[in-house]
């Protein structure tokens, strides 16, 4: 039996609900962006050999990947920050136990990120096209691999009973960190996120075409099959992960039928959006798909959080932890956040004027 570290003696700096709300919010925003490089990069590359609107839609997505990564990585900081506040004893331990893989995330992201820039700047230069495509695929594959590391980490974190397997590989009790915890359940989690991401990519295509003043050369009539296909495939892949994963989660799902239902219905909502768009590809149906997909991701983020709290409740009772509320730093953050949103909107308005 491996030990679980004690919670930090400094206690929680804010009420649990507040920390959880910020964590879920950050994860939701991260999920939106992350889906676009996780599944979107591959989808975009696969669309390149096609003709007409599909190729153009793929190119437009690929061109935006560097910016999407920047904001997605940035948004990913938020859930990780509050995860460390709420569950440091689980998070840190599970990262140390597979340390080299966790550490490799940073190195690989740098390679994949620069690879993405290289691809975007060179994909249309005839003399560098082949190398750029190769680097683009490598970057996309790295992002797919990073998903495996994250799925492994998040699952190992909530299953301390598995820690002893990793603690066998030590030198004088110091962990070697050269094993990755990826197993069947991690694969299910991974597959679920990939399915959700495919629907996010579909939502991006309609968002770009109809709501972001995308290129009018992208014909909605051609786009609709792609959108329908992606939302359908997204649902199937999500289901392939979710069905066995739900069986595993059964003990933690009691009494949260509504959230379980909403998380499960999310990809169906996205598919409904895809079907409506396929029937009538217009701005109104584009909005519907975007909203449905955003809700689907939100439901999943909330349900995942509820399940995480329940999985770890057998090891720690959050409500029993000492609470030392840092009121003025919280206010500083909230004020900065509001100011940040206002300044961002102001900048975006300037950008819109400049673009048009």
């Amino acid at each position, binding site marked *: 039996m491996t030990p679980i570290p004690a919670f930090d003696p400094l206690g929680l700096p804010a009420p649990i609900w507040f920390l959880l709300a*910020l964590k879920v919010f950050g994860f939701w925003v991260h999920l939106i962006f992350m889906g676009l490089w996780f599944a979107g990069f591959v989808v975009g590359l696969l669309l390149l050999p096609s003709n007409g609107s599909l190729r153009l839609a793929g190119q437009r997505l690929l061109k935006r990947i560097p910016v999407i990564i920047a904001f997605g990585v940035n948004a990913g900081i938020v859930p990780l920050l509050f995860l460390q506040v709420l569950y440091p004893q689980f998070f840190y331990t599970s990262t140390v136990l597979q340390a080299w893989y966790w550490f490799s995330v940073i190195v690989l992201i740098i390679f994949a990120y620069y690879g993405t820039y290289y691809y975007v700047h060179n994909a249309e230069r005839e003399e560098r096209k082949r190398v750029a495509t190769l680097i683009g695929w490598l970057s996309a594959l790295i992002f797919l691999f990073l998903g495996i590391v994250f799925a492994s980490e998040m699952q190992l974190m909530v299953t301390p009973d598995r820690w002893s397997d990793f603690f066998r590989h030590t030198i004088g009790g*110091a962990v070697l960190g050269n094993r990755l915890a990826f197993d069947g359940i991690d694969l299910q989690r991974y597959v679920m996120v990939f399915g959700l991401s495919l629907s996010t990519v579909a939502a991006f295509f309609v968002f770009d075409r109809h709501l972001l003043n995308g290129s009018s050369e992208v014909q909605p009539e051609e786009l609709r099959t792609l959108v329908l296909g992606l939302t359908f495939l997204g649902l199937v892949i999500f289901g392939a992960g979710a069905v066995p994963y739900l069986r595993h989660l059964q003990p933690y799902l009691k009494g949260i039928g509504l959230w379980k239902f909403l998380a499960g219905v999310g990809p169906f909502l996205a598919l409904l959006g895809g079907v409506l768009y396929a029937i009538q590809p217009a701005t109104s149906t584009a909005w519907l798909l975007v909203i449905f997909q955003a809700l689907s991701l939100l439901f999943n983020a909330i349900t995942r959080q509820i399940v995480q709290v329940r999985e770890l409740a057998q090891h720690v009772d959050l409500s029993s932890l000492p609470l030392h509320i840092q009121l003025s*730093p919280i206010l500083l953050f909230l004020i900065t956040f509001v100011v940040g949103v206002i300044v961002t909107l102001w900048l975006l308005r300037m950008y819109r004027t400049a673009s048009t």
Partner: protein
Amino acid sequence: MEYPFWYVPGIGSPMLIPMVALPHVLVSHFAVGGGILLWLGIRKAYRENDPDFLAYLRRLTRFFVLLTVVFGAITGVGIWWTIALSSPQTTSSLIHAFVFGWATEWVTFVLELVSAFGLYYLWDRLNPKAHQAVALVYALSAWISLVLITGITAFMASSGKWPQTHLFWDGFLNPTFLPSVVTRTGGALALTGLYLYMHISLIKIAPEVKEKVARWASRWAVIGVGLIVLGGLWWYNAVPGYIHDKIAERPTVVTLAIVAVLATLVATFFLAFWGKKEWLVAPLTVLLFLVGSAGFVAGEFIRESFRKPYTIEGYLFSNNVYTTQVDAVRARGFLNTAKWPKAYLQARYPQLFTIEGVLDTTQLPSLTPQQRADIGRAIFEYHCGVCHTLSGYNAIFDQIRGSDPDLIQAIVEDLEDHPAMPPFVGQSWENQLLVEYLFQAMKGGVQ
């Protein structure tokens, strides 16, 4: 005491921190200095109606954005990643003390991204007023980000009243906070100025633009170096006494930092007021940039290494023992307190533990030398491994070679007598096993 320790052969896991942190610190200071200089430069270009200077600044922006948004951002997260892997207990303390400081910094980083991409993608399309406004947001958000992070990093070496109060502002507004902000702001300006010298000496550029950039960059570099000197002296007066002792003990690195700063000061001052553009040749500017960077790295080294024996001054020792915990751990013994080495030994040597899970020292004589060495190694990894390796970086063999085991045991007993060392919190039998192991390992007797 609470977390598993990650073994990295040869260098030790904590040495991964500077590998990620030093490039990040350099790049993030570029982001700040570059942000400020871009804003000032764009203002100047519009004020003087100089499209050539503006075009030069555009080239610069591409570099800054690619470097800071990609490398800077990821290595910034990487520091956090790495410190959590090599020193989770310290990271947890910092997170629980300053999470809303970090959250606030996150907001400024979002603004930095939004404005950086605006400059990158819309440079030609923004009207002059909007262009300057976006550059101002970039500069301000990058600088505020520096201020917020400096509060936390300065805290680690000079925690002020925080260990007693545990209040956010007591920690954030610590004695070295303001001096560090001044020094870092100066460092950001100076480094960027030095980079500009190097940049204009390496690229093809119209002579009049080169002249203009050189003079303009020089002034800001001089101001930057001036701020470093001012902030450095202020910092020296503000740091706790234990750091003064260490500076006196290790003059080489301090001298290097001072020499680098002075050399940069003299060179930039000279170039600013008497220099000619012909002097800005690549070998000289690259050398200047390297000297400036070396000074910067030395400064970071001073801040980081002179903090020992603490990771958080007055609160947490580098061996993950809270300052308030020392006597209690000594009373119970290190291996009876540190959870993971204890779990390791319980799994391998269950006969050593009572039913209550307490290590029974009366069973120790039954162990073979190899088993005793194994226990000694566990003590070494968890008590010493945070800073030392056996024969690699900061090798313990180098410290004990030629000494007598009894002498080493006596030194370990009063380890805190050495200004950089935390107290040894084991009992005398743990000390004995540790020293036995070290000498056996040095002779090649154990793996």
